């Protein structure tokens, strides 16, 4: 109930602001209705995406200790693994099933570094960070819900939120080993469209969070990765 109330309140603020704007008030409201893409419209977008890094499993190279009383392992060395942040590209194709709800297919590619820091060697081997470059692909589907009630800039700037799931495909350096996984994501953003018309271009900005399992991570481990993207879009 609170949520719905807040939504109404937000909508009424937008409307009253529009109405309060002298002379152009009524016209503006009608215009905004036209700003929302028509049902059956398509939208393509492409741009840059930034993926945050995340920690992978830490491990100890453990030897079974020669003791019947001390059961702790004899530690030969320890590894700390992390997939570094990376910038990549992404593209999306959306279809408007209603004026405000679109279904969207997307693909993204980035080449993050997997870094394994090796420390604490029992025989004083120097600490090393061993790395590889990973080719990271995600193919996903999302439901994008636009919020025209919250639009501004004469209705050209439309907030949206999106929820979806994807297939993660990661190729290790050398391209001889592929590991796959799944992810779920949620995010929110803003689309800023050019002047009204059936065919329009614009800018899309999103931020979100992806919860992923598998890929170069252990099969039963879930990791969380935030992302941000800036794209150019074309609506037709």
């Amino acid at each position, binding site marked *: 109930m609170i949520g719905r109330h807040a939504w109404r309140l937000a909508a009424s603020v937008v409307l009253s602001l529009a109405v309060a704007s002298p002379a152009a008030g009524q016209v503006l409201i009608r215009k905004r209705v036209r700003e929302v893409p028509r049902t059956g419209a398509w939208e393509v977008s492409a741009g840059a995406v930034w993926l945050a890094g995340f920690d*992978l*499993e830490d*491990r*100890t*190279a*453990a*030897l*079974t*200790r*020669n*003791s*019947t009383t001390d059961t702790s*392992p*004899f530690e*030969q*060395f320890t*590894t700390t*693994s992390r997939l570094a942040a990376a910038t990549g590209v992404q593209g999306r194709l959306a279809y408007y099933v209603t004026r405000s709800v679109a279904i969207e297919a997307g693909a993204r590619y980035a080449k993050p570094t*997997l870094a*394994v820091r*090796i420390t604490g*060697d*029992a*025989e*004083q*081997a*120097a600490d*090393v*960070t*061993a*790395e*590889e470059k990973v080719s990271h692909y995600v193919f996903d589907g999302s439901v994008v819900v636009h919020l025209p009630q919250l639009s501004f800039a004469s209705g050209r700037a439309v907030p949206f939120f999106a929820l979806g799931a994807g297939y993660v495909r990661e190729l*290790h*350096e*050398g391209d*001889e*080993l592929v*590991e796959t996984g799944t992810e779920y994501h949620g995010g929110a953003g803003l689309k800023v469209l050019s002047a009204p018309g059936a065919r329009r271009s614009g800018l899309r900005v999103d931020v979100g969070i992806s919860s992923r399992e598998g890929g*170069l*991570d*252990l099969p039963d481990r879930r990791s969380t990765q935030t992302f941000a993207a800036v794209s150019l879009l074309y609506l037709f």
Partner: protein
Amino acid sequence: MRRAAGILVAVAVLVSALPVLGYLKLGSRASTGTVNLKWDDFPIRYFVTNRGVPGVTAQQLQAAVVRAFNTWNGVDTAQTSSQFAGFTQAPPFDDDDMTVLGFLDRPELDRVLGATTFLIDVRTGEIVESDIFFNATFPWSTSSAGQAGSFDLESIALHEIGHLHGLGHSALGETEMRTGGRRVLGAEAVMFPIAFAAGNVADRTLKADDLAGISDIYPTAAFQRDTGSISGRVTKNGTGVLGAHVVAFNPRTGKLVGGFTLSPDGSFVIAGLDPGPHVLRAEPLDDGDLESFFDATFSVDLNFSAKFHDKLAIVPRGGGTRDIEIKVSPK
């Protein structure tokens, strides 16, 4: 062979431990080159000498030997089988066309808990007979939780039966020199040449290195399809290092599998690895006596410091990653 602790002589009689692959598969020189020792006919039929020692009856010996065989036979990724053929009055180490495991009095081998010998076809490397003796000079136990002061027969049997299958020694362990000999600090392979202390039963369980070794000799189709290998060289000032111990560590699973550089160009192969990135570490073979690993003709280079490779080695599924070069420096 399994040593109680300390420096010792004599390796298995018929076999020169001249290996051609990681961990160590036992090899023997033939006119055509080196052949790997392996059984061609399964199940391996074995007899147990009908003799006990203080603390262990012949029946308890037989039960421990069966458990140890079953542990190897139970490795999912390897195809081996064995069959207890009965008790015998024959001692091990007789050339009698029977594979016999049993106790022998060998007080002169005061550091040897057990040893394995083979009769092989030198052309093919096929093992036709293999005997294992456990040195009755030592105190033994088959107690399920182990017994202070007595060596665990099942653990030592598991090690020797690894040899019987054609496995050599693993160097996955750390030792320290003490008066009276070398003491194990820790080991991560049943096939490490020096036993855990009396009373310890940890070596009843095979480790990743043991599993990779047995599976490399007797692979299942799934093992060949699902695991991969790393090959490369260890070099020092541009030339190959012979006898370096190379360990592949999986930073996702924590599994350790070892291998050795086995030719003058410093090349090594470690097989039986799970797909994925691996950390590589090269170290001198200084945690065991060299003759535990190689025959005397091997001129092992110990003059370098332990070193991690600065790249991750990516193991593909069912294939190998090649051309890795680990550059070490003199001490």
